[in-house]
């Protein structure tokens, strides 16, 4: 693989950009691999990357039914933060955030990580108390967050209206080192690095069945033929239940649509990410100038990748009160992603009832921020059978009642 650099850019500029090579090979499946990862989204690709980089397992295929990063990796609002309440969550999300900081250098691919800061508005007294508690918990976990006053909020976000009659801003949880990154680039960068290690990234290859022998999986049937494997990792988000059924076990997951939308591009007006969890709305400005707005999730099972209209109305109505200047913006695009929600709103990174099958799913509404950390932990789990990062996120926690309960405890937008 030719490295990207300022020198490479200059060299190509002098020869009409004829020398750029494919970022990753258009691979076709071999007969057998040491490990197969199903799903070439961010989490699947990151898992494969760290299998190779940290554990030396490079005879790996990543198979994808659509195209690379075409699911939720390309549909999220690109927010990266780690201000969670529970210790296991803070650990994996903080690992992830810290990996994001140097990911461009690691992958030799510019993922445009922008540590612009993430602010979670406290708009009720309960949120004020909740976020103060989170800030204290984060201090103990080594996650750098503070609770800031409305005055400081206004300094950081001049376009905000603090005294909205219905949703006043009473303070905010502020994580200065959090931010955003270019979501597609994360998938592309990992794919390029995986391909460079000799892994096969196989697109348009749908898994149609899972072959079992005894209590083990021996391979998968796909639209491109049968492929054998020693270990299987299922990393398919909203479609996890479908794959798990093929492998012969059930999951505590329900899939719903989560929506986002973007406005027409405007001049730079807000250089931080603002989340307002009371009203299920969050907003940041993209490099192109569009206001990127994340909304609420539908309450019912749904695979439509579209979402309900009234959620957009609720989100935008509430955000217009907090940001009066956006009331005249036209919205350009709206879309939905299928998110896999677990009972405790925490992910599942786990062994399964089938001996050599591992599953990484349940990231729900907040998977993008977790991509590097999730891949790091899941690769260790697949290679060694255990990982300190994923320990608390096993499937057995539902039976044992050891939830990583973020749904009621922390500032999670859902």
């Amino acid at each position: 693989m030719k490295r990207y650099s300022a020198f490479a850019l200059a060299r190509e500029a002098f020869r009409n950009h004829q020398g750029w090579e494919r970022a990753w090979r258009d691979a076709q499946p071999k007969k057998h691999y040491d490990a197969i990862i199903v799903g070439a989204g961010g989490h699947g690709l990151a898992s494969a990357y760290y299998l190779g980089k940290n554990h030396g397992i490079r005879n790996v295929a990543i198979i994808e039914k659509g195209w690379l990063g075409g699911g939720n990796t390309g549909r999220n609002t690109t927010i990266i933060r780690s201000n969670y309440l529970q210790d296991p969550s803070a650990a994996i999300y903080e690992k992830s955030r810290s990996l994001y900081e140097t990911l461009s250098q690691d992958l030799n691919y510019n993922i445009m990580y922008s540590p612009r800061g993430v602010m979670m508005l406290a708009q009720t007294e309960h949120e004020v108390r909740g976020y103060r508690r989170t800030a204290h918990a984060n201090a103990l976990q080594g996650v750098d967050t503070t609770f800031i006053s409305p005055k400081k909020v206004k300094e950081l976000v001049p376009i905000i209206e603090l005294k909205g009659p219905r949703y006043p801003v009473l303070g905010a949880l502020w994580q200065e080192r959090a931010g955003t990154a270019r979501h597609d680039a994360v998938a592309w960068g990992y794919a390029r690095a995986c391909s460079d290690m000799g892994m096969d990234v196989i697109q348009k290859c749908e898994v149609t069945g899972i072959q079992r022998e005894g209590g083990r999986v021996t391979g998968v049937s796909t639209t491109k033929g049968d492929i054998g494997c020693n270990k299987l990792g299922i990393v398919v988000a909203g479609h996890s239940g479908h794959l798990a059924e093929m492998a012969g076990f059930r999951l505590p997951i329900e899939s719903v649509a989560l929506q986002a939308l973007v406005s027409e591009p405007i001049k730079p007006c807000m250089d931080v990410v603002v989340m307002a969890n009371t009203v299920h709305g969050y907003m940041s400005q993209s490099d192109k100038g569009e206001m990127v707005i994340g909304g609420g999730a539908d309450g019912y099972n749904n695979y439509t990748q579209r979402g309900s209209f009234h959620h957009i109305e609720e989100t935008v109505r509430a955000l217009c009160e907090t940001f009066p200047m956006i009331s005249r913006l036209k919205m350009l695009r709206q879309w939905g992603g299928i998110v896999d929600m677990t009972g405790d709103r925490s992910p599942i990174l786990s062994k399964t009832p089938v001996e050599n099958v591992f599953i990484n799913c349940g990231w729900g509404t907040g998977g993008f921020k977790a991509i590097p950390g999730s891949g790091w932990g899941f690769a260790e789990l697949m290679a060694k059978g255990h990982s300190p990062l994923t320990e608390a996120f096993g499937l057995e926690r539902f039976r044992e009642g050891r939830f990583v309960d973020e749904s009621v405890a922390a500032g999670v937008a859902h």
Partner: protein
Amino acid sequence: MLILECPYCGVKADETELHPGGEAHLTRFGPGSSDDAFESYLFMRANPKGVHFERWRHAHGCGKWFHAARCTVTLEVFGTYSAQTTEPPSDIIEKIAARRPGWAKESQA
């Protein structure tokens, strides 16, 4: 926009008038049951990509719970029916079979 007809008051209500209540026809397990059964009742869900039987409450109407059969991919509604039953009525099953040849109701684990 999803529109369901409340089988009790006959109102065709859009989803803002209703509250979703998740998978229908779950068998309730409590103290004395096996860990497997209890875990399955509390957390395990069919989550199908296709025909789904689910609970809804006519929250801003008569306030009653009812059941609906709906496709999670197309949002097509096959019908709604009373919640006073442990399995979908045969006319609903027939309607689904007519629209989705080859479909078979999963047995509940």
